[in-house]
């Protein structure tokens, strides 16, 4: 194994947070990389009602988690979609098997998982069936393609103010467009 990782250390690194806390502290010193590498990354996947998404997005932004990936999906839960009561004279029951949902995934540090989940439950709970689910998954590695940074460095960066919201690029594109339209 690389970097002198003993089997014990490997188990510890791959174990849960509690496991790592209980492991011998001396072992940590033999790990060649900085302690920050021990911060675990998690993926939080939320499958929510599409109409709650915009509200959710602005709420989560307040937690300083602006980065996400979202997708329109179809899904169903234990209740197997929607079933309408049969109309009088109708030969069979009508139903919708799959309901449109929004699936969003955030990659965050261990410590941010709880606040994010609280925010998601707070903004998406209507108490009716179909509010959705949240799943938390471990992530082994993250890489920022632009710089090659890894781990938590790939998630956080000192972003210059003029790049936030893509303002700089928009300005460039806007000027290019005006030039083009003049020609």
């Amino acid at each position, binding site marked *: 194994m690389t970097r002198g990782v003993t089997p014990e250390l490997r188990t510890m690194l791959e174990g849960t947070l509690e496991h790592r806390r209980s492991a011998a502290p001396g072992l940590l010193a033999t790990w060649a990389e900085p302690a920050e590498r021990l911060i675990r990354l998690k993926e939080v996947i939320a499958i929510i009602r599409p109409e709650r998404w915009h509200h959710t997005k602005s709420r989560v932004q307040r937690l300083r988690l602006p980065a996400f990936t979202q997708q329109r999906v*179809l899904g169903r839960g234990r209740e197997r979609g929607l079933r309408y009561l049969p109309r009088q004279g109708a030969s069979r029951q009508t139903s919708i098997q799959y309901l449109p949902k929004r699936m969003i995934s955030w990659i965050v540090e261990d410590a941010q998982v709880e606040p994010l989940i609280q925010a998601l439950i707070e903004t998406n709970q209507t108490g009716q069936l179909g509010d959705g*689910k949240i799943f938390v998954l471990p992530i082994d590695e993250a890489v920022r393609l632009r710089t090659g940074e890894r781990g938590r460095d790939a998630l956080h960066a000192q972003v210059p103010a003029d790049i936030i919201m893509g303002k700089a690029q928009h300005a460039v594109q806007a000027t290019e467009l005006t030039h083009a339209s003049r020609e």
Partner: protein
Amino acid sequence: MKLLRAIVRPEREEQVVKALEAIGVVSLTKMDVLGRGQQRGIQVGASVYDEIPKVQLLLVVEDAKVAPAMTAIESAAKTGQPGDGKVFISPVDAAYTIRTGERHAD
């Protein structure tokens, strides 16, 4: 709990869902995806299709249900031809029901 990502033939999707239903796995999320496998797509005459439409099913099941779910998916999705798809299994730390705020972990 485990997350199963099953990438299957679109025409087999209904069969897979029915097979999963039969063993009590009802909840799932599906999405249309494009993909290719080791064969790098298919070639029909001169035209090459290297992005073949597939359906991806996402399901989170208890550890004890993983093996039956795999058997169900396999039996329903298998044609024996290249392009039947793949199933990827990843660990899930916790799941929350938003309606009740309940946390499930095992």
